[in-house]
């Protein structure tokens, strides 16, 4: 099976050439362009800057200023609230990612490779579903969960998160698998490999980059999920980081600015790192806007 590795899997890189038009960088337009960008950059940085400064400031408040350096905030917030919100967020994000990405792979593979009657309609429905505002199903899903006694559980909460992420994941993966050449699977089929074996040993390695994009996408959105766990899981021990931050803020009274900033910073870190790890493939994923038109 070595020959399989020779063909590099297609990546979702942009296909067109980069526009390289030579402009003198120091022309008036060049200076204006760069200055505008710097101003926009500063505007985008300012709100974030407070977060970073307050997190390491001994007596932080709303004002932005040079910090009285300390790492006490990080220590205090972790001893006071423990790692539980992180564990809960990780649980929700992992279960959602595994369920949504796994199910998306099964359906995307079938829809891409097999003859399914009404395939076109199914794909249009999938696209349609991925555009529906999922949070708007919150009230009926709450009632369904209440009837089934599924409320207040991290697992069932992740199941709904997975269901809401599934249509987009199917769409993303189907387009990706479509781009993978079919000959290898046919060869494996002729050699006598069964469906599951073809899926695991031939298709999976080839679509790994696409799968990674879908998985990271699912993970990031589940990590940031707020209203679904807020509504479906009222158990304080199950509180993910997002709900913790909200309650921190909502408890109005005395806010521990520095600690909340430190917590938010720590909480943002995993998704930022994940995004950076995958940014190269992800960027191509955003040919989505263009890729959709095919």
């Amino acid at each position, binding site marked *: 099976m070595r020959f399989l590795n020779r063909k590099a899997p297609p990546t979702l890189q*942009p296909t067109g*050439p980069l*526009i*390289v*038009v030579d402009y003198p960088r120091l022309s008036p337009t060049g200076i204006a*362009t*760069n200055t505008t*960008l710097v101003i*926009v950059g500063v505007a*985008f940085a*300012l*709100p*974030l*800057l*407070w*977060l970073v400064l*307050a997190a390491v400031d001994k007596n932080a408040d*709303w*004002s932005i200023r040079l910090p009285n350096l300390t790492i006490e905030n990080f220590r205090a917030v972790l001893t006071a609230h423990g790692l539980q919100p992180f564990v809960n967020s990780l649980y929700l994000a992992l279960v959602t990612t595994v369920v949504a990405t796994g199910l998306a792979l099964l*359906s995307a*593979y*079938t829809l891409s490779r097999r*003859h*399914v009657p009404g395939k076109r309609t199914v*794909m*249009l429905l999938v696209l*349609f*579903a*991925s*555009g*529906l*505002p*999922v949070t*708007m*199903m*919150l*009230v*009926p899903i709450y*009632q*369904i969960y209440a009837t089934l006694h599924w409320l207040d559980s991290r697992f069932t909460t992740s199941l*709904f998160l997975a*269901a809401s992420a*599934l*249509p987009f994941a199917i769409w993303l993966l189907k387009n990706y698998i479509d781009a993978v050449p079919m000959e290898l699977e046919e060869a494996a089929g002729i050699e006598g490999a069964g*469906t599951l074996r073809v899926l695991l040993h031939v298709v999976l390695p080839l679509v790994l980059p696409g799968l990674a994009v879908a998985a990271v996408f699912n993970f990031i959105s589940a990590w*940031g999920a*707020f*209203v679904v766990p807020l509504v479906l899981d009222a158990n304080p021990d199950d509180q993910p980081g*997002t709900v913790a*931050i909200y309650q921190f*803020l909502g408890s109005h009274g005395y806010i521990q600015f520095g600690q909340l900033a430190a917590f938010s910073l720590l*909480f*943002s870190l995993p*998704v*930022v790192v994940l995004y950076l790890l995958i940014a190269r493939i992800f960027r*191509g994923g955003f*040919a989505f*806007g*263009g890729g*959709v038109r095919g």
Partner: protein
Amino acid sequence: MGSDTRFQLGHRQDKPRFELSSAALLALPGGFLFFLFVGPIVYALFLGFTNLQLIGPHAQRWWFTGLANPTRLMHDTVFFTSVKLTLIFVVGSGMVGQTLVGLALALLMRRSLMPIRLSVGVLVVAAWVIPEVTAAFVWYAFSQAGGTLGILTRSPHTNFLFSAPMTTVSVANLWRGTAFSMLVFSAALRNIPSEVLEAADVEGASRFRRLWSITLPLLGPTLVTNLLLVTILNLSDFTLIYTLTQGGPGNSTMTLPVYIYQEAFNYYELGYGTTISLVLILIGAALSLLFVRTSRSAA
């Protein structure tokens, strides 16, 4: 005649057939979606016409109330305020704000110095990739009395979430969501063949002329797709507004998703909350349908 031959010869072998294993592969995801995605929507069609409550006399004993909820909706002034605010939010902050700033950034970045392009890109994307609750918290801090915004505008005692709530929330959303449009437009710009622009350059077209007559028209289809996606994303946005203002002060930022949440889970009116949800699902479905129509060739 034709059908007779088919019976004699058995199934045509050259035609792809639906295999049983395909059904097995599709059963799990299909069932899952049917239960947790289609189910709630269908259930909403019923719940929206009942008097179900979360807590109260109709929590256990509730029934179909016909047109009572829609009638109530038609006389609900908060609902109409909410529709107006949602429109302002989606059109002002999303369709105009995020799209224009995203497009401008994508265009400017093509011509900028590498370090500037990289750092601006990282900052814009960072605002988008951090969890929405964190983005909301950052803006909460930014707009409080004594916060950075107050210092910048020389009104340190102003809490902008009280003095200009809708504007602040819209700008926060612009800050958070611009990256999406920027990435979409950047990808589209990379796909414009450089020959076209070079040809125009040779013909002596000015920079503005090239932008106006070549780049922007070529971006047209992307613009349409992007506008629809941005609308869909912003229409259902809940977390940012709810975390910043909870719809207040005095309903001034009560967009539809926040209003639904308030009716259903703060006022315990699950039935009526679902009625409002139905309005939003209808708008969302119409937009999503439009989106499917514009991108049909792909499926």
